[in-house]
């Protein structure tokens, strides 16, 4: 069992922004070196590397740049935004299994240029995974998630008010976080309700930002973590999930498309856990699109199936609500879109007590990767 046997000893981030001049390779190494410095661990001690299959910076490049020692664990996790938590979770498994001692998990991404958007070439090159949707004009991730969101609204009687609760809470958190892209841009309910559509029922403010940036975390054993520069943030539980008959992004073809990965992930996550959903006062949940947070709140058991719209009503996702604070740095909607890795670093800050929207009395934090694809989740504790 993984329970508390490893910890995140260090985190590092570059600045986030539009059209950053540095390459993804440079940003990756900058974030990794910052994370190692945060932990107080020398780069030559790194013997494990874990990232996303979509990562463009090769592990050997990272190892050479930072002057790592001999690497004995290297791994990549697939499915884009579904990968974040699993890069950390698999690093933890490698440490517990004795395959490595100091593992770095990272994500570096430059996505703010229009040409960097994956869907921009979708119409003429129908990729293998899109051949049952793109010929009909379902082109972008926003369209693919909007289809599930509309079905969700119909099946459970939810309205756009629930999406607005998500967008407004996250924006309020970003307004407290000077590193967030939307730090100085408040958002009103009126602005939300009158915003332009992207893919109806999703409007502009239901969709994540497009950002450049890189982040990293350093995973070591609990014994090692106790000797590091910062207080350890323990990896209490980890789960991955690929629900039966899932289709990545266009999950319309199985028996129950709204049984999202978190329904499966949650079962494993809570199984060996000292906490229940009722104990969780803060969560960082992947939010490329606002409805994904509603799906996850149900899947992880914060409320019953179909009840998330009621659950979030009245600002209950806000940091000071006393319910469950979600995405306390602003998330992908309002801090930066870096494939959800900023949810992991914010989870660590909450456990260290250093968030700009610090949740009082929070002794554990759920971090969950993307709902629309095979995914993963972590439960961190202080």
């Amino acid at each position, binding site marked *: 069992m993984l329970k508390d046997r490893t910890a995140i000893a260090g985190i590092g981030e570059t600045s986030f922004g539009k059209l950053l001049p540095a390459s993804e390779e440079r940003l990756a190494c900058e974030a990794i070196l910052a994370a190692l410095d945060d932990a107080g661990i020398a780069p030559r001690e790194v013997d494990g590397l874990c990232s996303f299959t979509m990562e463009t910076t090769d592990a050997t490049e990272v190892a050479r740049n930072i002057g790592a020692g001999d690497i004995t664990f290297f791994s990549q996790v697939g499915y884009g935004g579904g990968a974040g938590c699993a890069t950390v979770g698999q690093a933890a498994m490698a440490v517990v299994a004795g395959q490595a001692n100091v593992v770095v998990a990272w994500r570096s991404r430059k996505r703010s240029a229009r040409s960097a958007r994956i*869907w921009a070439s979708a119409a003429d090159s129908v990729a293998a995974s899109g051949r049952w949707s793109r010929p009909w004009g379902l082109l972008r991730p926003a369209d693919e998630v909007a289809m599930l969101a509309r079905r969700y609204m119909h099946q459970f009687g939810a309205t756009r008010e629930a999406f607005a609760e998500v967008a407004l809470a996250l924006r309020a958190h970003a307004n407290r976080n000077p590193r967030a892209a939307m730090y100085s841009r408040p958002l009103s309910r009126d602005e939300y309700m009158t915003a332009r559509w992207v893919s109806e029922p999703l409007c502009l403010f239901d969709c994540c930002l497009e950002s450049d940036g890189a982040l990293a975390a350093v995973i070591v054993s609990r014994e090692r973590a106790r000797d590091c520069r910062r207080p350890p943030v323990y990896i209490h539980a980890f789960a991955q999930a690929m629900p039966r008959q899932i289709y990545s992004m266009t999950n319309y073809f199985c028996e129950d498309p709204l049984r999202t990965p978190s329904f499966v992930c949650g079962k494993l996550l809570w199984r060996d856990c000292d906490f229940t959903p009722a104990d969780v006062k803060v969560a960082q949940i992947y939010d490329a699109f606002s409805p994904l947070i509603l799906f996850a709140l149900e899947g992880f058991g914060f409320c019953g199936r179909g009840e998330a719209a009621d659950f979030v009503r009245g600002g209950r996702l806000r940091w000071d609500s006393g319910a469950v604070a979600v995405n306390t740095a602003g998330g992908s909607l309002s801090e930066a879109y870096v494939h959800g890795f900023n949810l992991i670093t914010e989870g660590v800050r909450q456990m260290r007590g250093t968030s700009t929207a610090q949740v009082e009395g929070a002794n554990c934090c759920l971090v969950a990767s993307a709902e629309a694809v095979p995914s993963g989740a972590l439960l961190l504790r202080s």
Partner: protein
Amino acid sequence: MADVPSWAGEEDAPFWQGVACGELRVQSCARCRRLRFPPRPFCPLCCSPESAWQPMSGRGTLWSYVIVHPPLVAPFAELAPYNVIVVALEEDPAIRMVGNLLAEPHGPINKVKPDQIRIGARVKAVFSEGPGGLRLPRWIYE
């Protein structure tokens, strides 16, 4: 075969050949008869690699929809806002297909008003040309 798009998967050809002759076909297991879509080499129920293709009635119900707005790429950009729907087939509501809702059989994908699109409405398949001249199954209200 010209009717089968170049990017089709190796199991997909009978679907597109059906579309070319105005028939909606779905793959089924040759052993246990279970329908499956999208096409794939093995039956998820009994793992048989033998499949047979069945003609469908072309009737279904609208399961979900979106109205797609810019920014978009060609050739869809000029059609926006347009609809994309998912239809659950009458033969097995767990068999669902992405399509478009048309006002008339050969009409464009942006003519049905958004407030006239209803989940649960009965629809039937029609066949019309999509981008690049490819013939696609699409849907009209029954």
